């Protein structure tokens, strides 16, 4: 396991270099020029040219890239073209919000998803199964902006149980929980739907395995038969999906962040791509990549923990 972790860290370094190069190249291949965006539609050619010069965009591509890379190795992610803010600072400003939201919504997703998934599997082909299927499919077909808006209308505007938007407190405070409730549900719904369907199908795969029969023969209560003996064996795809969704959530989710006015990484990334704010895009992509590698590492460790036959040696 220690070997696995060391290997992953090494791979991460290579990955970051690779992805920074690819993102760098993509930003330059894709049309759009940071200078003319900063200049705006009113800027004259001279204005734009001055901005280009100022941002160092007239240097050869590779020089620009290696300058950037050198920066990374000294721990400097550069400055935003647009706001002149340090990229690391901008990210540190926003990441806690995204993290809070991600944790809250993955909890919502797991609780709702896994429970309904299990119950539907147990009640395979009953009304509950049908209903939960329909709800799950609704959950994945409903656009987040709409779900969010409806939740705001009902719970924030009419009932006033929760604030309309904004995220200023950490999730463990009461205020923070209130602020997180609606966005977490909005965001968790899609993941919950996927997790529910995944757990249901995985449970159906194992529910008639011989070892489940053995558990029953031992007189294990039906609840633990399901929760321990079946679930643990059905867990692999479910964990995969949870890990994936958590990864996505950590990478920020543009729509929910927008609807609930949460200042997160997703919006940062979108805004900086729109502004062709290259250092900011790089910074957030590198963050997201690191998070993904991290989450996937954890998922891999959990795999081995769940299924002792899995090993990475």
């Amino acid at each position, binding site marked *: *396991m*220690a070997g696995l972790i060391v290997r992953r860290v090494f791979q991460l370094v290579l990955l970051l270099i690779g992805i920074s190069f690819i993102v760098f190249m993509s930003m330059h291949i894709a049309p759009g020029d940071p200078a003319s965006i900063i200049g705006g539609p009113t800027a004259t050619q001279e204005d734009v040219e001055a901005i280009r010069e100022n941002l160092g965009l007239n240097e050869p591509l590779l020089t620009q890239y290696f300058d950037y890379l050198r920066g990374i190795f000294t721990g400097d992610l550069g400055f935003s073209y647009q706001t002149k803010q340090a990229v690391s600072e901008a990210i540190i400003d926003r990441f806690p919000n995204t993290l809070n939201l991600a944790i809250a919504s993955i909890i919502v997703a797991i609780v709702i998803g896994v429970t309904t998934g299990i119950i539907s599997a147990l009640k395979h082909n009953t009304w509950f199964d049908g209903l939960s299927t329909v709800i799950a499919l609704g959950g994945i077909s409903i656009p987040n902006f709409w779900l969010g808006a409806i939740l705001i209308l009902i719970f924030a505007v009419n009932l006033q149980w929760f604030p309309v938007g904004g995220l200023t407190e950490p999730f463990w405070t009461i205020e923070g929980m209130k602020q997180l409730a609606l966005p977490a549900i909005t965001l968790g719904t899609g993941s919950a739907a996927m997790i529910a369907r995944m757990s249901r199908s995985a449970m159906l795969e194992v529910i*008639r395995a*011989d070892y489940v029969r053995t558990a029953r023969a031992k007189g294990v209560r039906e609840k633990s038969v399901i929760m321990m003996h079946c679930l643990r064996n059905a867990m692999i795809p479910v964990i995969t999906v949870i890990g994936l969704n958590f990864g996505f959530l950590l990478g920020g989710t543009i729509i929910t962040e927008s609807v609930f006015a949460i200042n997160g990484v997703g919006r940062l990334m979108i805004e900086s791509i729109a502004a062709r704010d290259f250092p900011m895009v790089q910074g957030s992509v590198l963050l997201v990549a690191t998070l993904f590698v991290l989450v996937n590492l954890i998922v891999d460790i959990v795999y*081995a923990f769940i299924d002792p036959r899995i*090993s990475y040696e």
Partner: protein
Amino acid sequence: MAVDEQVLYSVKNVKKHFPIKGGLLQRVKSHVKAVDGITLDIYKGETLGVVGESGCGKSTLGRTILGLESLTEGELVFNGNNISKYSARQLKPFKKEMQMIFQDPYASLNPKQRIGDALEEALIIHTDLPARERREKVVKLLNEVGLKEDHYERYPHEFSGGQRQRIGIARAISINPSFIVCDEPVSALDVSVQAQVIKLLKDLQEKHALTYLFVSHDLGVVRHLCNRVLVMYLGQMVELAPVEKLYENPTHPYTEALLSAIPRPAVGRKRERIRLTGDLPSPSNPPTGCPFHTRCPIAKDHCATEKPAWRQIDDGHFIACHER
């Protein structure tokens, strides 16, 4: 039954140690020495029985020989080819020659595959029979092991334990290999079907000069089927002899104990077995000297310190014991 003295498979000082992991970081704590230095020549056309206490490494030996477990140490020479370091591609022609009947038939069948397809697999891989002939062949195989054509469409979970075991056998023999490791192939069969299957195996052997490595706990079956018998204890060889010599003249104290414990199918004749007392040795921490000394009724002091040499005591009869 005269044994052709041509070596088919030569196993040289084979070892297989499994790591035991523990702790949060899954560090390797110790090793189970499942197979610990087996050197053996298997002759063409013979049936070599392997018997021994449960957990002594018989299955592991069989699997290692077939390359299903990586070698910790040692060499495998098949038909003069040292295959221990062959790549998967180099091994492919040998795979056709070597087959295995698994101890656990249910686990070794793909739950999502119909039995007929499972049996056709081997034919598809190693022959280029057209579909129709393959099916014919499979149906014939099913019949040979006492199943019916209707079983073709069934999935593994719809069979009884014995039926699955027979499917495992059918699969192993389907491509006419020259060497089969049979890991308790008839343990789940009632005696009548067992007799039928054993006959089948024997017929095949006669027809195709098949070689078997026959792992079994049923000493009756071993006596009827095998030419030579290897007795293992704790991953090591303790006695190897032609079948009659072993049954008539068991020399190693463990073999004696083993033979004495055979249950007889007659009422009232309780077995008068030699009861082994003493500590059960652990394979992760095997006793020094003779592995059997902790339970051996005739052990002397030096048995605990010196490892007994592998020596011949009679024509083709080898043992590893200080005292006999």
